[in-house]
């Protein structure tokens, strides 16, 4: 079955990032396998304690077993580390992001 990988580069307070997170949640609700990859300014969405609405949506995704990946490079560049990430959020390098995108039966949706 097709899995959708939602990629987000926009900052959490932008309508773009919020739309992407809403779509990820909606895809999941419909029973579609979803993963979320946070890149660039979108990594702020995973840095705790971050505020709603993005953080709340991320929490909801995690509790619905949606894997959330964060580009570690972009996190470090901004002065954050993978150590403080919420449980379930996975720091990833570029190679891992590519592997996720190129996995069989995966369709990339983004970057938002």
């Amino acid at each position, binding site marked *: 079955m097709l899995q959708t990988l939602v990629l987000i580069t926009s900052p959490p307070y932008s309508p773009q990032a919020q739309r992407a997170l809403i779509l990820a949640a909606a895809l999941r609700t419909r029973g579609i396998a979803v993963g979320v990859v946070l*890149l660039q*300014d979108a990594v702020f969405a995973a840095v705790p304690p971050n505020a709603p609405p993005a953080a709340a949506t991320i929490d909801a995704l995690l509790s619905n077993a949606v894997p959330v990946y964060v580009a570690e490079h972009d996190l470090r560049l901004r002065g954050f580390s993978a150590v403080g990430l919420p449980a379930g959020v996975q720091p990833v390098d570029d190679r891992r*992001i*590519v592997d996720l*995108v190129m996995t069989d039966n995966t369709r990339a949706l*983004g*970057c938002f």
Partner: protein
Amino acid sequence: MAGKTLTIFLTTAPYAGEHASTAMRLAKAALEAGHRVNLFASADGVYAFTAGHRAKGLPNAEAGFRQLIDQELHVELCGSCLTIRGLGPEHRLSGAEPSSMLGLFRLLRDSDALITVGS
């Protein structure tokens, strides 16, 4: 999983922010993983493929893409986007050729994955 084709659709200027850098990083990682990688630059994305950049304080797009082209990154540029911006052959990075929307669709038909970087 190796040996697939990834196409990156790059739409923003190289020094407007982080998109060109992200495109370079993902292209590099995909090439190193053994995939074929196309980059189609559209709109302000074509500015990344001009010559003579001397970036300071942020990654040099010209140098980065030049190296990736040497590593077999396939680059096509939206031709009308070049024309609108006055970017003639004398400005262009070698290995980054003008193409068309049909060229983009041709790449997409043969791609396993597509990512937009920019906007």
